[in-house]
């Protein structure tokens, strides 16, 4: 076996080892299996959030977009580089507090408890299961394609190896295995990408790349895309920025990272870790895509730019690191999606609607079976129906983001956001994105599907709030308390204020008299 094969095999064995290491801990309770007992620190929270967010798209779809559109593709990177900072700053602390106050173990259960409506949970479960599984299928297909291209194995065999490892460690070790393997995968991803970038740009500098791009076609250097295809279309550009800067706040498998943090104090450290990781990682694949236009002008499949660059210009150990980095990106997203699909099936469907009295031990096993079933279904679909991988990723991402972003943000910021608002926002956002994408309305309207879905989802929440039930006093109090940790409950604070009111008045009167201030002068 060649060196790259040995390195990759060791990498897979390490992942399996982590899964088995955490399997005993995961078996203790549902909270341990599904949420790691809310014990995740800042570095691991940041890395699992980011490595789950960055799928195989970053090594294949992103560079391909830059290869086709030039510097315009950087609009997507620009938003993506700040996504985690916005996500952690907006939702982090508040969602950590709210989810614990509501005893929610899954992001969909959280929505039901916050909006006090089983319908919210049913609709949320249906949307998330469909599009999370579609997202999983895309990742599985990418895993099979990447392994096939990089090892020469048949697609089915490569798929079974890649997916088999993911399913095994996720089923065995649950959420803890997922986040700790994500941590390692995040490190491998950033090392792989920076290593390849150093090699590539020592071969040809970025300035030289741009000079050659200008001689091939000057519009490659434009912010409006090749042949100025998006000239003046700010609706498309803003959508491109927003989808990866705020869109993560609507993805259940990312939002759950707020719920599993050790405490609200985890947020500040996680922001710095994620911000640094993002700036090191996110821009490079797009820049490599630009280099590919110059270095690999006859490339047939733009999605294979990075593997081709690695194998043509820097074979050997860098190719092995690259193989591991690509698989790390795919696997870290797949395991999180699979874990979330299993969580929704077990917690939000089985325990909520089939067996409410299931014991903790039973629930851990049901969760494992659901994760396994999701993986097997994903594997079968990936073998028999391989659609265009990255179209499916962007579509699923967009629909999930449009469905849940507004309900999650409103859940911690508005005491008035209610059940109908959440339902209108979810259905309106999802439907708009689906219609905008399938009817190809982006070009005639000049509006990105994500931006269109976001606007409709926001309007849906606003209108729905006029028709729904006013949230109960307990929920309103929980929203207030999510803003900052309070030592006393609202009713108790109110009572203290009332009791103190007469004493305050006496003290004020005394001060006034002492200072010879007449009532009329004030």
């Amino acid at each position, binding site marked *: 076996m060649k060196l790259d094969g040995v390195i990759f095999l060791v990498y897979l064995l390490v992942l399996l080892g982590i899964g088995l290491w955490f399997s005993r801990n995961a078996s203790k309770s549902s909270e341990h299996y599904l949420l790691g007992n809310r014990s995740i620190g800042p570095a691991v929270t940041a890395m699992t959030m980011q490595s789950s967010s960055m799928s195989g798209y970053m090594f294949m779809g992103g560079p391909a977009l830059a290869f086709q559109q030039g510097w315009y593709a950087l609009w997507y990177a620009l938003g993506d580089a700040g996504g985690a900072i916005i996500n952690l700053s907006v939702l982090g602390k508040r969602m950590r507090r709210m989810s614990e106050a509501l005893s929610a173990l899954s992001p969909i259960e959280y929505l039901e408890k916050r909006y006090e409506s089983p319908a919210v949970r049913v609709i949320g479960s249906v949307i998330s299961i469909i599009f999370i599984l579609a997202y999983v299928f895309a990742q599985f297909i990418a895993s099979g394609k990447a392994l096939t291209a990089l090892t020469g194995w048949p697609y089915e065999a490569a798929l079974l190896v890649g997916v088999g490892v993911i399913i095994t460690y996720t089923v065995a070790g649950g959420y803890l295995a997922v986040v700790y393997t994500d941590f390692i995968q995040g490190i491998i991803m950033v090392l792989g990408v920076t290593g390849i970038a150093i090699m590539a740009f020592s071969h040809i500098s970025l300035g030289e790349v741009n000079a050659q791009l200008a001689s091939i076609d000057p519009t490659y250097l434009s912010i409006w895309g090749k042949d100025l295809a998006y000239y003046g279309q700010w609706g498309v550009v803003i959508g491109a920025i927003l989808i990866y800067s705020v869109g993560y706040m609507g993805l259940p498998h990312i939002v759950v990272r707020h719920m599993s943090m050790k405490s609200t104090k985890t947020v500040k450290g996680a*922001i710095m870790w994620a911000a640094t990781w993002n700036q090191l990682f996110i821009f490079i694949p797009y820049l490599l895509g630009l280099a590919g236009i110059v270095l690999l002008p006859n490339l047939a499949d733009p999605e294979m730019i990075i593997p081709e660059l690695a194998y043509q210009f820097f074979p050997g150990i860098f190719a092995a690191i690259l193989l591991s980095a690509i698989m790390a990106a795919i696997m870290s997203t797949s395991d999180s999606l699979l874990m979330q699909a299993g969580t929704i099936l077990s917690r939000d469907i089985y325990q909520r609607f089939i067996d409410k009295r299931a014991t903790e031990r039973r629930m851990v096993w049901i969760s494992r079976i659901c994760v396994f079933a999701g993986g097997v279904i994903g594997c079968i679909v990936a073998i028999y129906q391989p659609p265009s991988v990255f179209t499916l990723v962007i579509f699923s991402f967009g629909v999930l983001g449009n469905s849940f972003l507004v309900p999650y943000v409103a859940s911690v910021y508005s005491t008035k956001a209610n059940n109908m608002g959440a339902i209108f926002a979810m259905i309106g956002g999802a439907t708009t994105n689906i219609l905008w994408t399938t009817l190809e309305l982006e070009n005639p309207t000049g509006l990105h599907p994500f931006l269109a879905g976001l606007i409709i989802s926001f309007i849906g929440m606003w209108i729905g709030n006029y028709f729904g039930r006013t949230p109960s006093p307990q929920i309103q109090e929980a929203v207030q308390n999510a803003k900052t940790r309070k030592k006393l409950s609202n009713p108790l604070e109110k009572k203290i204020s009332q009791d103190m009111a007469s004493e305050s008045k006496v003290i004020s009167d005394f001060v006034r008299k002492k200072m010879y201030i007449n009532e009329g002068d004030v």
Partner: protein
Amino acid sequence: MFELPSVTFWTFIPWPFLWLGLATVMYLKFKREDENEEDMDEI
């Protein structure tokens, strides 16, 4: 710079620094909040 048109350069290149700046501001904000909460705990 980098043989880019000035519009492209100033549109894309500053963003990594802006994001790191925002992250630092948020870090300091949350650090102060955490310290205030710790003070409340001591009281």
